[in-house]
Structure formats: C-alpha cells, structure tokens
C-alpha cells in the first residue's frame, strides 16, 4: 500500500523522464504524418500509418528525434493551440491553462509544459479526461508544431464527495460532505453545497462557488455563503452562530487574500457562563480582511521528514465606516522544520507558533477582545500537522489551559454548591514542539506507514485586552509555561493521521484540564 503521507508534487512528473519521453514519443509518432488534422472521432484510426513502410519510416524518424533530444535541445516553435472536445467549456478557460506551452522554445520544454498543462486541466475537475498531443505544424513552416488539447467534459456535472480536513477557523478535524455542480456556465465554475461536522461539535452548512480564474487573471476565486454553529458550551459556556459570506482570492501560490462579512451571535442557553463570557453574549457584525502567506516545502503534511513550512496570517476587522462592527487586529505565525536523520526514515521536527490579537478603535485599551478572536490551546490535533497559528498541545484537552473563570454558582442537590470553570482564551499565545519520528524495525509496520515518535512540547497563553496588559510581564509569562513530554505510535490512514500517545505532563497550572496518560489525536491535511 503506498504511503498516503507522501504529497505529490504537481510540477514534477511522477515517473522517470525516459518513460515520459517514450510515451510522448509515441504520441509524436502517431501524429507526425498527420499534416491535415486528425479525425476527431477516432484518434487511433486517424493516426494509424497507412503502410508498413510508412510505419517503419515514422519509427525511424522518431528514434532519430529521440536521439537528438538526448544530445541537445531540439528547437521547436508552437504554431497553434487547438482545443477539441469542449462543448460547454469556453475556449479561453482551457487556453489559459495551457498558455505555458506557447513560451516553449525547445521540444524538451514543450513536453514539460504540456505535462504541466495536462495537470492544470485535470485540476479544474470538470473533465473526465484530458489528452495533449503534438501535431506537426503547417508544411510551409518547418520546426513548428500544433498543440492539440482534447478534453472530454464530465458527463455528469453532479458530483458528491466526503473529505476530512482541518479548517483553521474550527481548529479541529472536520468531516465534510458536499454536492458539487460543475461547469454550469462553462467558465470552469464549480458550485457546491456542503455540510460539515467537526470534532469540536461544530457544524456548518454552506453554498460555495469556485472559479479557476478571476477576470482572466490566473487567480482562483472562491466565495461561500455559510451558516455555522460552534458549540463551546462544555468548555467556555457559549455557543457561536454565524451567518456570513466569505470571499477568497489565491493571488499566487503563496499569497491568499480573503474577506469575510458575517453576523455573529454568541448565546448561552445554559445560563451558566462566567463573568467574562456573560459580557460577550450578544450580536456582532464581523467584517474582516485576512491575508495569508504560506510556504510549505515539506515533503508531506502528515509525516514530514524533510523541508520547512512557514505560515503568516494577518487579519484586520472592522474595515467599514460603521464603528459598531467588531474591530480587532490579529496576527499568527507558524514555523516548522523537518530534518532527516538518515536511519529508519527518522526525522526531527521542530515547530514554533505564536499569535496575538488586540482590539482597535476608541477605548481599545480597556475594551476586552472578542472571545471568538482569542486563542485557545489544547485539543485532539497533533502539533506536527496543524498549520497556521498556535492551537495544539499534546496532553491538554480542548481549550484546556489558559485564563479561566468560575462559572455561575448553582446549588447541587446531591453535593451542595458545585460549579466549574470557563476557559475564556487569551490574546497572546505561544507554542513550541520537538518531535522525533522513526520507523519500526518490522517490515509489516513500515509497509503500512505505521511509525513511532517521541516528543516534547510547551505552550502558554495570556490575556492582554481589557487593561490586563498592565499585569502582563515576560518573566511571569515564561514562568507559567506548560510543558509535556511523551511517546506514541502514529497510524496514518488515507483520510487522517491518528496518534496514540502516552503523555506525561511536566508542568501545568491550576485548573488546567490535563493529566498524564494515554491520549489520542486525529489530524487531517490543513486547509
């Protein structure tokens, strides 16, 4: 079974270059003599040489060409890009994805560009098959070629899928089922309706639109209308509901810009909340702009053994003239690095994450930050896999550490007065971890990707807003750091990575929800 942890690189062929060249060569052989165009209906019939002598001559020419390619670049110029098979999809959508082939000046470059274009077209997810072939150019123009793109559009525009992911907002693993309607208007548009459920009792129903290009620019555009619920009653005595619309533009491979406008409502149906949460209950309008810079050069997001990743997320809320919208600033940074050690496929993973949030506007120093924008640490996600800001810490339960307050006092008939505590989150959080992963000696485990790891992590969280920055000092923050060490087994599956760990809590503070013992985590590729 192939290791699902390996992440495919779309820009590199997954096979040997020689195999690629031979396959492309077969395409060239088939099309080399077809100067008048090919038969659209039956490609195999049209490309079949007429006589055995012609076939032998074609093969000899092709072998000569292959030899020339192996020695030096073979100059070639793309004369035309011909698109076939698209009845609904607009030509410009396909041509935009294969634009790179026009810049090729050698046959080698052309083959590589064609490979990339093939992947890009498949990635649109609106075709059943994509085939790019090289046809000879007009006879009066030597050393030219026509690139023929033949696509077969999806017979059924409806598609259903179930995926697991880790959404950065939910901060937990999410199971999402969606129904997609593809390419309604022929622009590569994908409309979807989805239902998602998270491990943290969160739910979301939404309608989305994905466009591969926005106004001709190579920037994928997503928009989403959603209604979400996050149930934090058990940890913080509030439930959050949001109705909103989010827009996202992938400016380039590393840069993403997003905007969210949402009506958010915090309620406490149990009426047991602590003082800070009681003050936060109510309606708010969120209008925030988010910029994400992401570089992930790790070889795998579920078992990285080499490479690094860096994510920086900046958010500013309240960018409307109405001063009654939620005004806040938020910054998160996450850096991870994996170093291979060379034996039993072992690797040392380091990571450090930090985040800070603060209100802005009049009275910003004394105003408390919104609990929805605060940081919370703990949960059933592995720090190795979580990407984008401090959230995970082995050994600590969901929202299990940090500032907390007593809940409302209620008389218990059985044991007199009983009350628990709400974790209200913090405005600044820092986490760090080190993880050594290694294969087991037994082949059975190696074949299935099951491996072991030992780890250590530390983290802390503190409040700054609401005039609490006056009580914040760096020595006190360092002094109250929580830390954990442990070891465990990692079981990767096609949907998620499961860890079964034994965690020993080295240091914790009063009221933290953590204890030494066995702990399971479920992690999915971050989205």
């Amino acid at each position, binding site marked *: 079974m192939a290791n699902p942890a390996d992440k495919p690189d779309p820009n590199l062929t997954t096979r040997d270059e020689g195999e690629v060249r031979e396959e492309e060569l077969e395409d060239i052989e088939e099309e080399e003599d077809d100067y008048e165009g090919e038969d659209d209906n039956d490609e195999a019939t049209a490309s079949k040489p007429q006589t055995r002598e012609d076939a032998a001559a074609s093969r000899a020419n092709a072998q000569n060409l292959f030899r020339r390619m192996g020695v030096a670049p073979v100059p070639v110029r793309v004369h035309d890009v011909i698109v076939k098979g698209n009845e609904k999809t607009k030509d410009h959508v396909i041509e935009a994805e294969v634009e790179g082939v026009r810049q090729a000046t050698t046959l080698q470059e052309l083959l590589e560009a064609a490979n990339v274009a093939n992947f890009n077209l498949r990635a649109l997810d609106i075709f059943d098959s994509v085939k790019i072939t090289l046809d000879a150019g007009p006879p009066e123009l030597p050393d030219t070629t026509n690139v023929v793109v033949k696509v077969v559009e999806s017979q059924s525009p409806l598609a259903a899928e179930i995926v697991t992911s880790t959404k950065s907002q939910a901060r937990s693993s999410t199971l999402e089922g969606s129904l997609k309607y593809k390419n309604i208007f022929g622009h590569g548009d994908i409309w979807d309706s989805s239902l998602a459920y998270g491990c943290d009792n969160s739910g979301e129903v939404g309608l989305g639109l994905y466009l591969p290009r926005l106004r001709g620019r190579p920037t994928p555009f997503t928009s989403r209308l959603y209604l979400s619920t996050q149930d934090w009653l058990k940890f913080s005595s509030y439930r959050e509901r949001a109705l909103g619309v989010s827009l996202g533009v992938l400016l380039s491979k590393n840069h993403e810009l997003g905007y969210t406008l949402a009506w958010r409502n915090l309620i406490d149906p149990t009426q047991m909340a602590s*003082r800070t949460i009681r003050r936060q209950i109510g309606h708010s309008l969120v209008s925030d702009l988010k910029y994400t810079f992401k570089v992930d050069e790790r070889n795998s997001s579920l078992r990285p053994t080499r490479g690094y990743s860096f994510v920086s997320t900046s958010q500013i809320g309240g960018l409307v003239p109405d001063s009654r919208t939620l005004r806040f600033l938020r910054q998160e940074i996450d850096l991870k690095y994996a170093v291979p050690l060379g034996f039993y496929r072992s690797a040392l993973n380091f990571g450090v994450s930090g985040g800070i949030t603060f209100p802005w506007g009049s009275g910003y120093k004394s105003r408390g930050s919104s609990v929805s924008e605060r940081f919370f640490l703990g949960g059933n996600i592995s720090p190795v896999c979580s990407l984008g800001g401090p959230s995970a810490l082995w050994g600590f339960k969901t929202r299990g550490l940090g500032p907390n307050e007593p809940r409302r006092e209620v008389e218990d008939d059985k044991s007199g007065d009983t009350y628990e505590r709400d974790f209200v989150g913090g405005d600044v959080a820092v986490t760090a971890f080190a993880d050594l992963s290694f294969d087991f000696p037994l082949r059975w485990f190696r074949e299935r990707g099951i491996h072991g790891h030992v780890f250590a992590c530390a983290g802390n969280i503190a409040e700054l807003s609401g005039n609490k920055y006056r009580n914040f000092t760096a020595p006190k923050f360092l002094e*109250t750091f929580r830390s954990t060490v442990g070891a465990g087994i990692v079981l990767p599956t096609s949907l998620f990575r499961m860890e079964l760990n034994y965690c020993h809590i080295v240091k914790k503070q009063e009221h933290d929800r953590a204890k030494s013992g066995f702990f399971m985590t479920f992690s999915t590729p971050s989205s």
Partner: protein
Amino acid sequence: MEGDQDTSDFTLVTRKPCFGLPTACPNCLPAYIYLKLAQLPFQLAFNSTFPDSEELPYFESGTYVAYNNEDGGVIEKLKKDGIVNLDSQLQSLPDYLSLKALIVSWLDEALTYEIWVGTEGVCASKIYYSDLPWVIGKVLFYKQTYLTKNRLGLTKENAEQREKLIYKRASEAYEALSTRLGEQKFLFEDRPSSLDAFFLSHMLFTIQVLPETSVLRRKLLEHSNLVRYAERLKSEFLEESSSSPSPPLHSFPSSFSGKGSKPKNKPKAEKSEEEKKIKKRARFFLAAQFLAVVIYVSVMGGGSSDEVEYEDDD
C-alpha cells in the same frame, strides 16, 4: 489567571442609558429602581448587543447571578434568594396582588403597545438597536415588531379595537392607582415596595421617553398626584445617581419629547421668547410714554403763550 471572586461586588447589568434615564429599557428600569429604593449600593454595567435577550436585566455578585427569565423575574429572584426584599408582609395584603396585576399586565401591555406600535418604534430603535450595526439592528427591529404584534394579538382586522381596549384599560389603571395613592409617598403605607419600583419605572418611561403625541402619556399626565409621586421618588432616590439631572416632571410638561436632550434645551428657548416679549412690551410702553409726553408738552406749551399775549392787550 484567576477570575474575580469579590462577593461584595453587586452589579446590575442592564441595557444602556438614554432619554435621561439610567437605563432606558422598560424591562430593566424596575430592577434598577428597586435596588435604589432598597438603598443597596451596586454598580451598573451595560449590555448593548443583545436586544432580544430575555435574560436582561441580571444581577450578579461574584458567582451568584439572578437572571430576569428565572423565577418570575430578577426582583422576585432577589426576594427569594434573600438579597433584598421590600415586600415582606405586604404580599399578604389583598390590594397587593390586584395592584401588581394592574401594573404588570395592563400597564405593561399598554407601554409595550405604545413603544412598538403607537409610536411606530421610534423610541425602540434608539433604546435597543442604536449600538448595533445598521443591518443587524434593522433585522432585529422588524423581527421584534412582528413578535410584539403577535403577542398583543394585533391583526389588521382588530387593530383599532385592540388599541381602544388597551388605552381604556390603561386609563382605568391610572384612575385606580391615582385613587389608591392619593397624596401618599408610597403605594403601601409609608414604605417602598416592588410595586413602587414597577409603577415608578412605568411613569418615568412614559413621561420622559414617549413623545408628546403619545396617547398614553397624555392620559398619565391627567393625574397630577401621580406625576407628583413620580417626581418625589425620582428626586429622593434616583437624582443623586443620574449623571444629568432632568427637569421636574410637572414643570414643563410640553417640553418632554422623544429625546432626552430636548428637556434641557426647550426651557432655554422659551426663556428667550419671554424675554423678547417683555422687551417688546417695554419698548411699546416707553414709546407710548414718550409720545404722551410729547403731546402734552406740545399742547400745553401752545396754550400758555396765547394767555400771555391776551394779558399784554389790556
């Protein structure tokens, strides 16, 4: 990292102040007045983002919280939990229940009608939604207006009849309370009770918040002893805590409109008009006096000269 556990910190959380009242919400004001009548020191905190909550007002002290949607209301809960009870030995009186029913049902219904229907929600927008973003405020306002009309049993067919019934009951309630009160300081004996809190809240809201065109307000102002009662209690128990002292309730009845800032500005405007009138009259008087003197001098001065000439001829 620990939460506040100061058990002596009494806090009442209400909706925000407006119209010259410490809290402009008619559901929150009775609790505020009740604590003031009990002379219990407390702090006031505000929640302006949850207009559709039934939990407000709530009273908290450390980890103790008394929500308004529990045990019959925050006042009842404070009585039941022994925090403050002004109604001890009053609840057994026969008048107590009937007056309470009158205030919390007929008058409350009339006030609700006047806020959301009678005045077309102008006051409600300012009280409940002015601190929310426009979109959210509008949606919640329309939602609450719809729910209120349902609760009051209003339909297009019976709107007029219901209105008449509501105002009629309010008039009868005012009449009964006016008769019951007379010139007493409080509704019961010489001690404040929760009914004084409810009734005073109703009166202050009706007079200070509702516009002059309000039918309910007009009906209330017909009972001068009720107005004097409200003013007396307001100046004795509430005045020291209000940040902007409002003018006496009965002095300038025409000056109270929908906005709390207007009562301060209108007396100034009237004063300047009176001054103008006086000055104008004074000018007329002076002009008339001057004219009289001129006429007198001119007439009398001509007569004396003739007499002198006649004497010279003899």
